[in-house]
């Protein structure tokens, strides 16, 4: 198992390089430069600025230079936000995004599994159909509709919760509620359905029949025999679920004005803020790759039939 983990960890590097390369060339091959929107600067000044970040060099050289910088841990400077280095930016904003993301995923997981199990145990009752309709609704309503609607309702009309922002001295943790809720809805819906299906599938299997034939009470059958196997597909889903959250955070952070990594993402791309975009992509990619590895390890622990060499 150790060999497998080490292999996977090292395997992150080539994948990362592919991602960096892809992003790098997509961005660079597009027209425009970081300074093309600065109309009030004379061309000579612009040329100078470009030279400063080596934009005059051949693309390949720029690429290699960047790669070298990244390997040394230097992610460069933003051309838009000039008062901090990108490393500083990441140190400030990554914890915020991570908190938001992990909280949302946890909420989705806990509520999703609970609802899914309940629906499975009361199959074909009103509760079951209701919960499943709710989860299809969850898949059908995008985050950028839920977010504003929640803001409208809880913030503007009811005044219970603050509209936007992050943890502050004024409203404390209340600010977190709406964004975490918004971010968790889609994954909650998928997890609820997946859990329900999975539990029903297991309940149909032969070894549950054996457990019943042994005279085990229903409670034992559900919690000791069914749950462990039923949660495996849910576990597998956590990888893509986390990817959903990363994507969703771009929208949620901008709707709720949260100082995380996703807030400036779209603007950075529009502004050709090369280093900023690259850095964001790299950080997100590393997080996802590590998360996937962790999921695989937990899976191997939970399913005794899986053996990694």
């Amino acid at each position: 198992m150790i060999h497998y983990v080490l292999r996977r960890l090292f395997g992150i590097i080539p994948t990362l390089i592919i991602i960096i390369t892809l992003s790098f060339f997509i961005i660079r091959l597009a027209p425009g430069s970081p300074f093309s929107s600065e109309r009030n600067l004379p061309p000579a000044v612009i040329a100078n600025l470009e030279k400063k970040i080596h934009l005059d060099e051949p693309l390949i050289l720029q690429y290699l230079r960047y790669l070298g910088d990244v390997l040394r841990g230097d992610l460069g400077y933003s051309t838009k936000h000039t008062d901090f280095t990108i490393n500083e930016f990441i140190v400030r904003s990554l914890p915020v995004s991570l908190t938001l993301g992990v909280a949302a995923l946890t909420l989705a997981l806990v509520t999703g599994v609970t609802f899914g199990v309940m629906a499975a145990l009361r199959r074909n009752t009103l509760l079951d159909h209701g919960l499943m309709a709710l989860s299809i609704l969850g898949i059908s309503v995008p985050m950028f509709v839920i977010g504003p609607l929640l803001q409208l309702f809880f913030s503007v009309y009811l005044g219970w919760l603050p509209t936007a922002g992050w943890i502050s001295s004024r409203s404390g943790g209340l600010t977190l509620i709406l964004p975490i809720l918004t971010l968790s809805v889609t994954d909650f819906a998928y997890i609820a359905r997946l859990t329900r299906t999975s539990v029903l599938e297991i309940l149909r299997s032969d070894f549950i029949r054996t457990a019943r034939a042994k005279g085990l009470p229903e409670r034992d059958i559900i919690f000791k025999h069914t749950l462990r196997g039923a949660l495996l597909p849910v576990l597998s889903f956590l990888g893509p679920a986390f990817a959903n959250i990363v994507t969703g955070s771009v929208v949620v952070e901008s709707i709720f004005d949260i100082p995380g990594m996703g807030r400036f993402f779209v603007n950075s791309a529009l502004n050709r803020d090369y280093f900023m975009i690259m850095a964001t992509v790299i950080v997100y990619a590393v997080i996802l790759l590590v998360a996937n590895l962790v999921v695989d390890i937990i899976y191997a622990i939970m399913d005794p039939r899986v053996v990694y060499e």
Partner: protein
Amino acid sequence: MSSDNLEALPKGMSLFQKALSRFFKNKMAVASLFVVIFYGIVALLAPWLPIHGFEEQVLDHQNLPPSLTKNGGELLVERLRFELEDRAGRENRSLTQQENEQLEKFEAQIRSDPKHARRYLLGTDYLGRDMLSRVIYGGQISMVLGLIGALTSILIGLIVGGISGYFGGRIDSFLMRFVDILYSLPYMLLVIIFMAVFGKNIFNLVFALAGVSWLTEARLVRGMVLSLKNSEFIQAARVIGASTPRILVRHLFPNVMNVVIVFTTLRIPSFILMEAFLSFLGLGVSAPMASWGSLVEDAVGSMTIYPWRLIFPALAMVIFLFCMNFLGEGLREAYDPHSEKIL
């Protein structure tokens, strides 16, 4: 042994018929089907429907609320009256002679201009464009993009998955490794970057969306091809002496198509969502064209003052997606009542 014995082997068509009968027993799914068909018909007939053009701007009619009874002019008069009375109320007086004259003059002006007779069932947006037609035409764009995106990615997935599954060996390993790597990428981020830097137009949009989401289809098709390739009835067909093309057409194809139909239905909502997501970020369709996502984006900033601009496109989109998803679920259950694999 005549090749007619192939008739005895399971055929894709009879599976389809059984699924169809099971499907129609599911009332909610059938209801969803009707809703989806309704949307489709409205979208198709849009140019001939008695609605305003979606691009027509009547700047005087900015941000009018929805109304079943009052036309544009009456709403404008109401608005003016409300403003005046509100100010008067705050100053604790009733309307002055001057203000009443102002109102009457305005009303006369309104009555003389025929354009104020326009009705806006769902209100107007910030440029005085009719929300009803915006929502309908926006739906057209969203649905078409969703369909094209889904079909394109399925096409790519079919080809890649089919090749991978059928030929196996090194081609298979290589392609699947490729898919695995791509699977772990935060691809929406790359799509965002792509759209931001290469500009937003329809081609880029479809290319970007389809280009990154064929992965699941490829895996699915490959899995199916592999299992069918080794399944007993294919072997039986071989033993009888059926030729390869015949096997492919008669047996492999219908079975794969059945799954593809279900999958497409479930994919279209994802594509509509992705396109809406991009439009919301300002990276999707560009003005004057609208999609549901871009309509929501337009409306978010002023949603507290003009909530109908957000509610109607959002509602239209959510209802459509809900019904598409329900439909897809119904189809999947109809084909295989016990299998509910999340694809």
